[in-house]
């Protein structure tokens, strides 16, 4: 089969289970395509030789009862992988080789999947374009010199370009859904507490969640089923009854009430996004859903709240990088000098900026005015969603206020970069699940996504709505393999 890499995860699983394909054949195909695709810069660390060995071992004694039997997979370089370098896209972790495995990746290997390598991302997941990575920009396979979104930019690029059948990202303010939207792929940010944070390099602990990034909704549901487990190693992991998301997936969403929040019609929103949203509403109606206008009055305050809460938590989390226990060290005249030089040389500009913001809003005299205020507004934002979900089962919005932009276009203006996350950030603040599905193209032919937001723990419902709408939308990604010589 020459077209192995064009198959979806579900097809590959079926073909391996049906013994039409071996793990070695599949792994070799994705390794070869990844090797031909270096120009995308999707990988930070490749582990192809080990992957091929593991595939061979799998084939010698295949366990076909597993959910991901012998499936090769590259993952975002924010997940600690035992004995394989994990950098978080930062110079400060350039030489860090974890001695333990994140729970989410362990769940994936337990179901038979094989690690191919670690995917590029914004440094410590702080960015919306993958341009803050110490390991350089990632190309969007949609067009040359186009950002793949961020922070899970290597992940979105690799899935869209079919370098890996599926992958995982992390989402603190939109880092799964925005890159999915920019690359014409599907990305799910689960409910806070659904996927364990153990072994994921921490950014903002009250917001971080891992989730699947896939070519279609069915694949996404299958991976969510694998990675979502209760984990006592994460004190915020929640012990709730998890669905078998892929088995319970249905296109029957008749009578579901879908809310349209008027506050998401932001000033200066391009007409293309407005049109996409209108089309999305029609698709949902075609599927039998009932459309209801709702209000989320504090939407405009979500980004300012996020840019207090996330940097505050980051400044605390990143205090551990001191050049003593692991990671990069710059020599200094004394201990304090060593700390200051290590952190100044080891962190990139955006990470330093966010540590500074976070330190400032937590510092004596400013805590109440900023951090406490933001936590109060966060409560108001969550209350908005709680009120809305008394009337509706899900909420439909655009995923992003624009399509993908060019590399370098927004790097000089942090605030304009932050505005990318205007539709995704409220979901993290309220701890809800949200999924982005590709829903159309703009005039340049770049993909645009729609976001479906659900009640906490209601992943099955938003996956079902996404699954039903996906069929009506019938989206096709335009990928020409321009980077393959």
């Amino acid at each position: 089969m020459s077209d192995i890499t064009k198959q979806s995860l579900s097809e590959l699983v079926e073909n391996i289970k049906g013994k039409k394909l071996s793990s070695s054949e599949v792994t070799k195909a994705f390794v070869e395509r990844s090797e031909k695709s270096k120009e995308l810069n999707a990988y930070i660390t490749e582990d192809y030789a080990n992957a091929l060995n593991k595939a061979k071992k799998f084939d010698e004694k295949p366990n076909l009862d597993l959910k991901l039997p012998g499936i090769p997979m590259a993952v975002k370089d924010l997940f600690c992988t035992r004995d394989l370098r994990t950098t978080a896209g930062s110079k400060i972790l350039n030489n860090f080789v974890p001695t333990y495995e994140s729970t989410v990746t362990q769940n994936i290997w337990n179901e038979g999947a094989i690690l191919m390598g670690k995917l590029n991302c914004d440094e410590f997941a702080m960015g919306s374009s993958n341009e803050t990575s110490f390991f350089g920009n990632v190309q969007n396979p949609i067009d040359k010199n186009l950002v793949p979104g961020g922070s899970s930019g290597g992940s979105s690029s690799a899935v869209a370009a079919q370098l890996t059948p599926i992958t995982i990202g992390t989402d603190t303010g939109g880092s799964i859904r925005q890159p999915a939207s920019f690359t014409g792929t599907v990305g799910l940010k689960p409910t806070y507490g659904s996927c364990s944070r153990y072994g994921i390099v921490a950014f903002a602990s009250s917001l971080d969640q891992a989730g699947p990034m896939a070519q279609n909704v069915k694949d996404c549901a299958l991976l969510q089923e694998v990675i979502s487990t209760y984990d006592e190693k994460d004190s915020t992991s929640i012990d709730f009854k998890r669905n078998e998301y892929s088995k319970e997936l249905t296109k029957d969403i008749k009578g579901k009430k879908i809310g349209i929040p008027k506050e998401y019609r932001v000033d200066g929103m391009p007409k293309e996004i407005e049109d996409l949203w209108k089309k999305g509403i029609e698709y949902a109606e075609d599927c039998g859903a009932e459309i209801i206008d709702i209000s989320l009055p504090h939407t405009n305050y979500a980004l300012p709240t996020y840019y207090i809460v996330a940097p505050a938590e980051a400044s605390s989390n990143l205090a551990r990088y001191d050049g003593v226990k692991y990671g990069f060290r710059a020599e200094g005249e004394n201990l304090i000098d060593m700390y200051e030089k290590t952190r100044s040389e080891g962190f990139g500009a955006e990470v330093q900026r966010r540590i500074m913001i976070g330190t400032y809003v937590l510092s004596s005299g400013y805590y109440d005015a900023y951090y406490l205020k933001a936590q109060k507004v966060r409560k108001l934002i969550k209350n908005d969603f709680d009120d809305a979900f008394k009337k509706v089962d899900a909420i439909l919005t655009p995923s992003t206020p624009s399509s993908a932009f060019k590399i370098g276009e927004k790097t000089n203006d942090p605030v304009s970069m932050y505005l990318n996350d205007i539709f995704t950030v409220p979901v993290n603040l309220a701890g809800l699940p949200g999924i982005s599905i590709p829903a159309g193209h703009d005039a340049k032919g770049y993909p645009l996504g729609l976001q479906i937001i659900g009640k906490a723990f209601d992943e099955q419902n938003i996956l079902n709505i996404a699954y039903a709408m996906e069929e009506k939308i019938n989206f096709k990604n335009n990928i020409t393999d321009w980077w393959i010589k």
Partner: protein
Amino acid sequence: MSIDLKTIKHISKLSRISVDEKKAEKLAGDLNSIFNFIEKLNELKTDNIEPLTSVAETTLKLRSDEVKSKNLRDQVIKNSPKENEDYFVVPKVIE
């Protein structure tokens, strides 16, 4: 509100990130534009609102206090930039 160079120097000290004059000026510009954007929150009255510290409405689970992993010394020291036998090595602190 405006963040001046003196404040930047203060935050840089608290953050343990060394900052030279040029970097301090750039940071002051960036932080001022970000804080202008953040000031929007002052439009809202929040006197009687309870702050939200965690969206996970769950109480911490109790567990028995027992050792689950041991003999991790080699693993703990494995990634350190400089070590001596079982110790992390840092520049001299006490004369």
